[in-house]
């Protein structure tokens, strides 16, 4: 498997393209594309790819980019796109429709701060705004994980037990524009990993089927329940996909949540994306100094892996949830879900939220040290703590 020094965007563009190409023996591939910083290089890569049976449609908006991909997917083709920030907000209506249509579209999102004011740097608020749209969401830490997760996303999305779209996310610039060594799987291996797409509810030109007309409340209710059941099957199907991926590509694409030194940890940091890389290093050093501290990286956010997260924190008395996102009027979004996961199961754990790296701020080892200092000094959990505020003291209860 060739290893190249490429950016996260290049890795994503490559994964989307070879996945699309792999469906050339079935109904082909098509997608709508539209540029927005910092994901533009992804759609540029896709636009250059010489598909054997496919078409890339450069459209006039993100909203239409997803619409073209929906039309292709409804027709049984493999479909995908990519976007960021305000582009995702503009696309939102069709993102929601894709989920409720159960279309196995894969989208790569480069997490960028929602404007205004204008800001192109990393913040997860854009994809987390879409958390309730019946999409699976994965947050990646580095270029290889972006590539692997994007490929795996197609297999997972298209599995008949799932049939839901997947969002693969990476931090703006820190991953999207940073070049690292990345193994690029050959097309024939991708062909083996991704079987021909056979979408059970696709349109047929000679069948009078209406997709998406009116439904009565009790009908639609059962469709929502089917989504819930599919979501619950995701963890098991993911492990099957992961096993097959490892066999074919000789590399583990990683678990749904990834733990480091959690076995007897009293303090656990719950993180995601590139924050995990930094936090892991801090944890490694502190472990060497004898501190009982561990780390959980949440790779999968939707469906939220409640049970495995609780298991990973079994010995913990204090948990810090690091959120590179903020739900106005509430707090960090990973924190909300983490608290819900513990409630009624582990009410003894002190769960404290730290808002860090928002709007593109750097999450350095010093920031992690500050968080740990705060966490250990607490007698109880309080309001979310804003890190990196320069004008005054940290807001805390």
């Amino acid at each position, binding site marked *: 498997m060739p290893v190249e020094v490429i950016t996260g965007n290049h890795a994503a563009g490559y994964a989307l393209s070879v996945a699309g190409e792999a469906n050339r023996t079935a109904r082909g591939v*098509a997608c709508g594309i539209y540029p927005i910083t910092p994901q533009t290089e992804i759609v540029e890569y896709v636009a250059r790819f010489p598909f054997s049976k496919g078409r890339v449609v450069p459209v006039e*908006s993100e*909203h239409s980019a997803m619409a*073209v991909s929906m039309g292709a997917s409804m*027709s049984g*083709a493999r479909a995908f796109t990519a976007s960021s920030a305000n582009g995702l907000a503009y696309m939102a209506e069709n993102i929601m429709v894709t989920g409720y249509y159960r279309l196995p579209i894969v989208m790569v999102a480069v997490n960028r701060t929602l404007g205004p004011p204008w800001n192109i740097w990393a913040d997860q608020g854009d994809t987390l705004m879409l958390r309730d749209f019946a999409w699976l969401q994965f947050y990646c830490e580095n270029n290889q994980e972006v590539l692997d997760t994007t490929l795996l996303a197609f297999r997972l999305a298209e599995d008949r037990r799932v049939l839901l779209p997947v969002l693969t996310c990476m931090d703006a610039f820190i991953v999207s524009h940073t070049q690292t060594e990345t193994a690029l799987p050959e097309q024939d291996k991708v062909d083996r990993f991704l079987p021909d797409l056979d979408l059970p509810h696709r349109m047929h030109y000679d069948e*009078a*089927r209406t*997709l998406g007309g009116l439904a009565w409340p009790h009908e639609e209710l059962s469709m929502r329940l089917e989504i819930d059941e599919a979501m619950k099957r995701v963890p098991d199907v993911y492990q099957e996909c992961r096993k097959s991926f490892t066999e074919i590509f000789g590399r583990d694409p990683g678990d749904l949540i990834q733990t480091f030194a959690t076995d007897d940890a009293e303090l656990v940091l719950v993180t995601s994306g590139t924050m995990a890389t930094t936090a892991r290093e801090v944890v490694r050093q502190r472990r060497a100094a004898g501190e009982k501290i561990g780390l959980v990286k949440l790779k999968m956010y939707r469906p939220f892996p409640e049970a495995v997260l609780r298991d990973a924190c079994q010995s913990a008395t204090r948990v810090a949830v690091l959120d590179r996102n903020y739900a106005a009027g509430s707090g960090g979004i990973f924190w909300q879900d983490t608290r819900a996961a513990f409630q009624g199961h582990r009410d003894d754990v002190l769960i404290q939220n730290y808002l860090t790296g928002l709007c593109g701020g750097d999450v350095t080892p010093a920031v992690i040290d500050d968080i740990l200092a705060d966490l250990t000094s607490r007698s109880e959990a309080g309001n979310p703590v804003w890190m990196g505020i320069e004008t005054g003291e940290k807001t805390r209860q």
Partner: protein
Amino acid sequence: MTATATIHQSEQCLLRPGNTNCGGCGMSVGLTMLGRALAEAGDTCTLVIPACCGIVTAGAFPTTSYGVPTIATTFASSPAVASGVETIRNLNDEPGHVICWAGDGGTYDIGLATLSAAAERNENIIYICYDNEIYGNTGGQRSSATPAGARTSTTPQGKAENKKDIMSIMAAHRIPYAATLSIAHPDDFAHKISTALSIEGMRFLLLHSPCPTGWKSEPEDSVKLVRLAVSSGLFPLYEVYDGVTYRVNVEPDGTDPAEYFLRQRRFDDEEIDLNATRRDCSDRTQRLQALATQYPPD
């Protein structure tokens, strides 16, 4: 998860009997005429329909009033979804046409950017706008297709602005074919569908679609009203090829447009400036005739 009635198109008409559309609905007659023209040509289609009366027509899951495959899209998205559907149809060498069936709200207003982009890309789709000059499905609000003077629930005093000239906008995209349709002229309707079916690329058809509910007119007057619109020059029947050459299909005969307005209670008889309307009709007719004379199709 979807309506799954599987019936081969040849056994069914495009719009099945038993749908719940309003009496006098021009869109329903238009769908029937479209179905007939397709059957005549031995052709099939997939309908791509945004939010509008056209998708409500399908009825409730798990049944459908459409005898052809039909996709509901978001309000602004039908030409983009159709681009995806047509792409995959083409890549798999399948028969049939991809037809967008959209109201004036989805065409003139919220979907205009999407439609313009699909036209600019010259997508191989047929786009039919049934123009009832109102947001009918939501109970009758103004759109940019509503004519000046018409009272709607959001222009209770009558709309101050003129109707948007969507045909000129579409012709300016230099698409292969653009034409107007009237349910009062079924032969012309059928001929234009057949012409559209024979052409590749983006085809835009504008159907003047009476809406008794919104127009506050009698259902039995629907055909009469749109016939008056054609003969007076309010809604001329014409074709534009490649955005360049013009053909007028039914010459306006100088019929006074007054009756068109008097038979619809959306217009306030006191407020409508009939002389200005007559001048508009005559100007429109002359301009089209001049274009047709100067730039006739080959």
